């Protein structure tokens, strides 16, 4: 079976001249849980955001489920995006909207735009939204304003929103970096469950190696925009660690 995601010679130079990614290539088979690690500024976010073209790649290709994302026009790009869920470090919920509206926003790529503009969703979508909220344990919060929730709850809403997309791939950009360790594990468990039960491929950038060891099937490491390491979490020994994080880095945890 072809890989769900193939990245070929991906390079990104920002308009200000920063070379954030340099010739990055790797494949992601279906159903894998891939952790992306690297120092701050190594290009993890840029990599994830190039995949659904929130950031426009400078050169190289991103192939999602056989479709060349980099060559898509607007309409085709939206059809690709609706199958790629995205989870953000700062949750990126619309604070003033109710939780359920935030979750329903995950359907926007599927519904007819005209109906969605007047906030009309099909009963099936409404039921789906409630089911996803149920799944992340927030069924009773559907009517609350998003900013009335705690950080961990907000991230679960973010997950529910991604699940609404029936995603084949979830991109999670440091999903737990602004949460405490206990909440971090609970969020990671949700992702893990989605990965195992629904077979959704997950590409997740992480800062903590213990989380990488606990949840990832595979690790991709970036250093200064270059792919430094691609292998199993258990293969990261001290030498590899120093290669990824630099000579001065000390291993903690």
């Amino acid at each position: 079976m072809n890989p769900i995601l193939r990245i070929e010679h991906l390079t990104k130079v920002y308009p200000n001249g920063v070379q954030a990614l340099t010739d990055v290539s790797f494949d992601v088979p279906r159903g894998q849980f891939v952790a992306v690690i690297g120092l701050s500024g190594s290009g993890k976010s840029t990599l994830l955001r190039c995949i659904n073209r929130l950031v426009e790649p400078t050169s190289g290709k991103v192939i999602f489920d056989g479709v060349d994302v980099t060559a898509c026009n607007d309409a085709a790009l939206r059809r690709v995006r609706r199958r790629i869920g995205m989870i953000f470090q700062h949750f990126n919920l619309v604070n003033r909207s109710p939780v359920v509206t935030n979750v329903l926003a995950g359907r926007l790529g599927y519904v007819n735009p005209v109906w969605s503009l007047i906030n009309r969703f099909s009963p099936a979508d409404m039921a789906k939204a409630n089911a996803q909220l149920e799944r992340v344990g927030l069924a009773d919060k559907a009517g609350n304003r998003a900013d009335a929730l705690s950080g961990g709850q907000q991230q679960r809403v973010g997950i529910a929103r991604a699940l609404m997309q029936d995603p084949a791939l979830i991109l999670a950009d440091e999903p737990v970096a602004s949460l405490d360790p206990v909440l971090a594990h609970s969020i990671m468990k949700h992702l893990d469950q989605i990965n195992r039960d629904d077979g959704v491929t997950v590409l997740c950038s992480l800062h903590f190696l213990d989380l990488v060891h606990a949840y990832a099937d595979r690790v991709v490491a970036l250093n200064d925009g270059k792919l430094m390491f691609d292998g199993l979490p258990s293969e990261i020994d001290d030498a590899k660690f120093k290669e990824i994080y630099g000579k001065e880095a000390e291993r903690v945890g």
Partner: protein
Amino acid sequence: MKRSLTIALLIVAAFVIFAYGFSVTQVNLEELGQESRQQALTRILRALAHPDFIAFDQEQVEVNAPVYVPCPAAGEPAYTPDTSGPYMTVTPSCGDPRAEVVVEGVGFAPDTNGVLYFIPDSGVQLQIGRFETDGGGYFQTTVRLRDRESDQAQQLRATTRRNIGNAHLSQNGIDTINKIIETVFMALLATTLGTFLAIPVSFLAARNLMATVTSPVASVALTLILVPLGVWLGGAVTGWLGQTALTLLGDWLPALVGLVVAPVVATILARWAVPPVEKSPPGALVRLLRSIALLAVALLAILAFYLFAALLIAAGERIAPLLGSFAFLGDFIANVGGIIVLVLPIAGALIGGGVFLSIAGRLGNTLADRLSPRTLKAINIVLCAVAGMVLALLIGAAVEWLYQLRQPRLTVVWPAIIGAVLGIIVAVRSRADEPLPLGLAVYGVTRTVLNALRSVEALIMVIVFAVWVGIGPFAGVLALGLHTVAALAKLYSEQVESIANGPLEAVIATGANRLQMIVYAVIPQIVAPYISFTMYRWDINVRMSTIIGFAGGGGIGFLLQQNINLLNYRAASAQIIAIAIVVSLMDYFSSYMRQRVV
């Protein structure tokens, strides 16, 4: 050393600036102290302290006493006044023409003014003096008799006015209240109109939304060519539908049937053309059929609106006379119909432009996607030449209309050539499929227009509108509304620029399109500040509408200016007080509302 030199220079500069300022603003301290100026100030302050709000019904009280000119031969006649009411004695009670007599009055109303008349045989009233009663209702004054001789008794008459009944609003008070209501409603209409127009404009003037809008050269060129065509076509088709509606309206029955059938058919068509969920992208034929259906929906909707408007006008005019003092409700209904008729061609033109805009965008994108770079480049050159020509011709037409040059070479031939050449240059220099920053161009134009509009005060705009629609509140509403659009759109767009970007990205990442992103991620973030800015603007509009009458915009300012010009300061005082009360009430109300939303 250098520092102190700079400071010295600054002081000298400040001295010169203020000296010049005093001379151009004609500061004149002597005037302040002059006796006559002080009296003028006292007069106006006293008038302002006695606003003309309240009046009493008054009754004229007349008291007569006989007087002989000259004295009869029999000597001074005796006269016993009736002392049951106010009465008057004249001493002496006869005299030669122009002789002085002393007039005493008793039992008059205390502390009032009155006029003394001499009434000869002919019965005319000749004023010979004024009097003022003391606290006991007594007066004494010396007057000169008139040069009218008669052997009959003639009369001296004292007239005073007396308040009867309760205090009530004076005519000026009634006018003031009517006008202040008119003023508040001017502000309301201007704010509503301005807000509705400012909301869409503010999105065009928000950099963060527009910066990501890019389109390939072919799309931009096609847009320039097709949008004017669409605007014209939309306007023309709407006008034609209006005619059709009018002929339909010749009879009530077809009109009513039309009004029922058109929306129903339109709804059914819309349901079919806009299915709730799209499993896979539809084929070309289905898309074409759907587009045709949507076009039919738009036409039916416009037709229905025309019928509806015509019915409103007819109904409003029919019921207005039946409603008595609520006739304004009927007039309002008729007016709403009139407004719809007025707005429909504009709406039709905008829809036409919008439809052609999206066709142009898609066509351009398809061309850019499908064609090889070389073919695309060739097509781009042709399209850009035509587009440049269209743009230049439109500008030329505008110049011709404004300045009436009547020189086709200057307004047609040369612009066409220059436009085409510029278009070709753009097409040749840009890469064939390079996206042009169309959004930023729209942003720049919108910002420039808004800034220009905002820098002209409503008080000045109203001069143009008063010439156009006549002096009155309508001109004021239009001027205030236009200024509100410019001011609010700027405030709004700055608000849009300051919203959190994360939610926008998150919604875009789900595969939503730009419009969905605006509805789901932008609007929820801006509702509260928009309301608060609107209230703030409402506040300003109330203030402005109180003075816009000075320049012909109706409302209370018109009345105030008239009274000031007539030196009628007591009446003006009433209007000034009304303005102060209403403005401070609105101020309080709007700040209360703003606190509630934010």
